[in-house]
């Protein structure tokens, strides 16, 4: 009985050690096994290139074509999601600006109303009261004009940003379509060659690799060459600020004219 217990003890210790080793080694082996084939960069790709075709190259070609096209579709979908998020973020940013502007205007209106009522209290004669009313209306008009000009400049800026983004997207969509077509075409050509009477696996493989490399590099180079949207936004912002400044000048001129008319009604020595 004692012997049996001893054997059982030994067995349980051994199985525990094996279990522990499995726990340690499992993630390592899973990483090694599950490492995606296409994760490497072009540099690693070049170094791992072998001239010998893999066994059954033609047999597995359709599957590889499907997997590759599937991956491109998934990444295309992710790009689409990024665009949706971009739209949402941009809308939220614009809304935030609108909210801040509305709050600032409300605050400014309250402060101005307070000042205008103090100014109105200085009017003693009917002429002066009338002049204050005229001044108030002129100030309000000038403010409305200035704010409308600001709003218009802001909308022009936003429309410009949206246009730049839309135009960029259509360029990218065309680049993506070309890329996708080139990849599909490369695989179709390889599959057609494989279907021939005496296919040369090595030559077909090399042609496929060259075509896929060319498709990838064309897409990547196109992506590099059109990275000017940040500059476009900057330019649009500068145009908007210039429109603000023009509106400010008009506004100041209107205020100066209104002020002069009021001062004339009150006389030179009055502090208005």
């Amino acid at each position: 009985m004692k012997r049996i217990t001893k054997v059982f003890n030994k067995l349980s210790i051994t199985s525990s050690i094996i279990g522990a080793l499995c726990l340690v080694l499992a993630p390592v082996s899973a990483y090694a096994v599950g490492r995606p084939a296409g994760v490497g960069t072009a540099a690693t790709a070049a170094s791992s290139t072998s001239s010998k075709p893999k066994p059954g190259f033609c047999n597995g070609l359709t599957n590889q074509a499907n997997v590759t096209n599937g991956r491109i579709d998934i990444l295309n979908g992710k790009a689409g999601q990024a665009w949706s998020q971009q739209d949402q973020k941009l809308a939220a940013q614009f809304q935030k600006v609108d909210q801040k502007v509305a709050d600032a205007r409300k605050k400014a209106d309250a402060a101005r109303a307070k000042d205008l009522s103090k100014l109105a209290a200085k009017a003693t004669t009917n002429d002066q009261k009338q002049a204050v009313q005229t001044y108030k209306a002129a100030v309000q008009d000038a403010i409305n004009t200035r704010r409308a000009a600001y709003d218009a400049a802001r909308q022009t800026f936003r429309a410009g940003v949206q246009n730049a983004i839309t135009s960029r997207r259509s360029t990218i969509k065309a680049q993506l379509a070309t890329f996708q077509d080139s990849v599909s075409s490369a695989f179709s050509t390889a599959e057609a060659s494989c279907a021939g009477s005496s296919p040369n696996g090595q030559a077909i493989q090399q042609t496929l690799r060259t075509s896929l490399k060319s498709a990838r590099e064309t897409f990547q180079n196109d992506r590099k060459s059109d990275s000017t949207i940040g500059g476009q936004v900057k330019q649009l912002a500068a145009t908007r600020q210039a429109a603000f400044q023009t509106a400010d000048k008009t506004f100041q001129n209107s205020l100066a004219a209104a002020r002069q008319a009021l001062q004339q009604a009150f006389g030179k020595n009055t502090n208005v």
Partner: protein
Amino acid sequence: MKSSPQRDKSAGFALVETVLVLVILAAIVGVGLYVARQKSNVSSTLNSSGGSSAVKAPAGTTAGINQLTQQDAQTEAGIDSSADGGTQQTSTSANGAVNNVGGAYNEANY
């Protein structure tokens, strides 16, 4: 008890460590406060120079109203320009996802 000197040593080290951490924290807080102060100084300077004149015009005068309305305009313009960085960043935010499509495969693996 042979292990007591060892324990004393490690207790001493813990104290030194604590002091070191406190000193580093104090330095970080000090630098943070200094930077915040500098920043508020700069913004107050900008605000005071934003109006038509640095001196506040008396309330209830046309000069005061001029100043208020011009400040209102400058505040608005400031709101827009301070959001430009974010807009610029957002306009390029999808680039990464788009560029990733080019990494869909590694031709050397075929």
